[in-house]
């Protein structure tokens, strides 16, 4: 018990140090400076420090228990990263656009249950499509409430979470549903050169999202809208449409996540998604996103997921009691948020 407190304290301390290092590197701008795009170097530092912390955890844990670096554990880690990763990406996109989505967990639960239920009745393809459709519809409603009804997204998505949770519980009850046909067995156990297909799916999403944000005009508009709505409007950017699209993307990614989870665990119940939204937001924030919008990257979000999942796996290895794990997870989440807001206020 004592040991794992020390451990988590060390992690937090390390993270804090890297944050501090980044602050010191905030180079003041002078017009004759050769360093272009000062912000870019902040990003690189962040990525490096995240990787550094992960590396440190690996080293420490391997000394503690050499199975940490074993194939089985690494595989599990990759799977976990894949499952959290896709919603972290969606979360990052919404955050960059300047909004927040708290209904993700409930959406994942709902879409997953739709998927599992429909597979038996209507077959794989119909199930996947319905699952995706549900995610997109929920995303659209979130978008509508935020953009048209002008409800602060925090409250709108919170309210939606409540509503979706209810609908889930009413429609599907509290029992766990199993995919008895093991429809996606090939996807589940398949690997390409040792890397699970599931992880590859995540990489595809990551590349797609990266391309969207970096090379598509829509991506640039998302950054613009998050940075300054007024300026974006003046340039003719349809701010409301852009925000709406981010919510729809989020919804779609949520349903994709539920697909990944189902493939991985072959089962679903109404409580699978609980707390996922906070984890996804924490990962995005660790990766550079801020609650104000305009900043952050999807690569950073994935690195954030890597860090978080590594930590969670470490907790398991250390034998942390599950309710203590919950509390520690919550603390880490909140620490990440606190640290990112700190940078905001200092700036």
């Amino acid at each position: 018990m004592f040991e794992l407190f020390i451990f988590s304290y060390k992690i937090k301390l390390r993270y804090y140090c890297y944050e501090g290092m980044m602050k010191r590197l905030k180079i003041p701008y002078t017009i004759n400076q050769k360093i272009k795009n000062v912000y870019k170097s902040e990003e690189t530092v962040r990525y490096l420090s995240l990787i550094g912390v992960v590396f440190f955890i690996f080293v420490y844990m391997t000394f503690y228990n050499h199975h940490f670096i074993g194939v089985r554990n690494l595989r599990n880690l990759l799977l976990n990263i894949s499952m959290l990763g896709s919603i972290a990406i969606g979360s990052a996109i919404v955050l960059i656009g300047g909004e927040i989505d708290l209904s993700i967990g409930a959406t994942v639960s709902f879409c997953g249950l739709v998927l599992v239920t429909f597979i038996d009745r209507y077959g794989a393809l119909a199930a996947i499509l319905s699952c995706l459709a549900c995610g997109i519809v929920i995303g659209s409603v979130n978008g509508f409430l935020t953009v048209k009804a002008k409800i602060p997204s925090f409250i709108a998505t919170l309210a939606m979470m409540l509503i979706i949770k209810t609908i889930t519980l009413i429609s599907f009850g509290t029992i766990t549903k199993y995919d008895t046909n093991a429809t996606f067995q090939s996807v589940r156990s398949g690997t390409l050169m040792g890397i699970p297909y599931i992880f590859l799916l995540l990489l595809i999403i990551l590349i797609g999202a990266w391309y969207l944000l970096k090379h598509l005009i829509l991506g640039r508009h998302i950054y613009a809208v998050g940075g300054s709505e007024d300026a974006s409007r003046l340039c003719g950017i349809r701010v409301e449409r852009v925000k709406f699209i981010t919510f729809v993307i989020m919804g779609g990614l949520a349903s994709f996540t539920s697909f990944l989870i189902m493939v991985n665990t072959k089962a679903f119940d109404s409580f699978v998604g609980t707390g996922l939204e906070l984890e996804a937001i924490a990962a995005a924030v660790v990766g550079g996103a801020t609650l104000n919008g305009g900043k952050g990257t999807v690569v950073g979000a994935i690195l954030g997921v890597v860090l978080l999942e590594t930590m969670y796996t470490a907790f398991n290895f250390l034998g942390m009691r599950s309710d203590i794990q919950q509390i520690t997870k919550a603390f880490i989440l909140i620490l990440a948020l606190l640290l990112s807001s700190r940078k905001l206020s200092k700036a």
Partner: protein
Amino acid sequence: MNNPYLIKMEEISKKFDGVIALEKANLNVKQGEIHALVGENGAGKSTLMKILVGAEERDTGNIYINGSEVNFKNPLDAKAAKIAIIYQELNLVPNLNVSENIFLGNEPGDNKIKIKVDHKLCRKLAKERLAQIGADIDPGIIVEKLSTAQQQIVEIARALESNADIIVMDEATSTLSSKETSKLFEIINKLKEEGKTIIYISHRLEEVMKLADRVTVFRNGSNIATKKISEVHIYDIVKIMLGSNYEEFENMETRKRKNVDKSRKILLKVEGLSRKGHFEDISFELHQGEILGIVGLVGSGKTEISRSLFGIDLNSIGKITVRDQLVKINSPKEAIKLGIGLVPEDRRRQGSFLSRPIIENLTISSLDILNHWGGVLKKQKSLDRSTVVASELNVKMSDFNQLLGLLSGGNQQKVVIGKWIIRDDQKILILDEPTRGIDVGSKALIYKIIRGLADKNLGIIILGSEVPEICRLCDKVVVLCKGKINAYLVGEEIKEENVLSYVLMK
């Protein structure tokens, strides 16, 4: 038939919540000229421009561009008609870089569907645009790291990028230093050479005289006169702008300088006040009944001095003596207790509570006087004092419970100033640019009030950048240059040319 006017705005009227902003206003702008719009706040020039660029919808009237009628429903329509506007509060996206901002909404590329961003092309075109104006800014820099003047240049580049032929500038120079202003004028003249038409809104008449070809004076929602700059004198413009209040202004000019009796109490003595990076070795004395002016360009440190005196900025060293007592002012509350008040520069953002009623705005700094033991408010006393102050300042409102945000800009400012007058233990009042953004008629009223306060033995410090105003108003003038006192002028030494020379010299 060739219409001599590029822009023709006819009989434009606009009402906001019952307040008449524009009443049958007309404006004619020739192609290729720099046309200035001057007038009081509330006179309608900004509103008219917003209507021109489609940010507001007019109630009645017609607009013709190049002879054909136009009907803009939104700023995009205006953009398509090649009209661009640069607002006073610049509208760039802070977290994107220069080239991204220039091309925002207008991303270059060959593909017709316009989905993909061509980074290389963007950067190249951005460089060209900036070079076109003669600016030396790296297009990769994130905009929030640039200075205001540089951001303004980016805005101009953006306007050019959208192929604007008509560029409207609303109070472009209010936050610029004179060097940056000259650079801006260079750019504007360059734009004129390229055949662009510029509409320039400003309340700085000296600048308008230097820059514009023709000027239109607005008053009370309508245009009063249009003159060629070469055919008018600055005083004529002022006369047209002021209308019936001109007498007060004239009275102002003949004010006699007070010779301060040395036996009067010293209210405030500042010795060696310094704050690293902002100002150094500031020393002056303020006597009872004296009006001290601190003049300097943007960046000379005057606002910073006032903030240190009022307890908002804390890391200053040096001695501050208030009424023979050596003090350290660590918060605005302490400053207020010492009898110091500050009317801030940005009255909207730093002085007003728009969603609260007028009476709350007036009494917010006097809560310690206007309450019984335990914090319960003395409502009747608040109302009485507010009534006195509101009538002194001639605030136009429906009643004290009206929300401040519903008043006109000038009236809002009056309320912010009134906040300090309501206290009866006020000893020192610092006013940071008290007449900025106020119409000339109200300006005269403010001068009157300031003098009245001085007569009541308050000590007044006025921070200003309009030298003629300071010269007419003050007994002593401190001229700041780059954070240091460059001159300390008393009595007959206070002359416009004299002051100006110290503002710029080292």
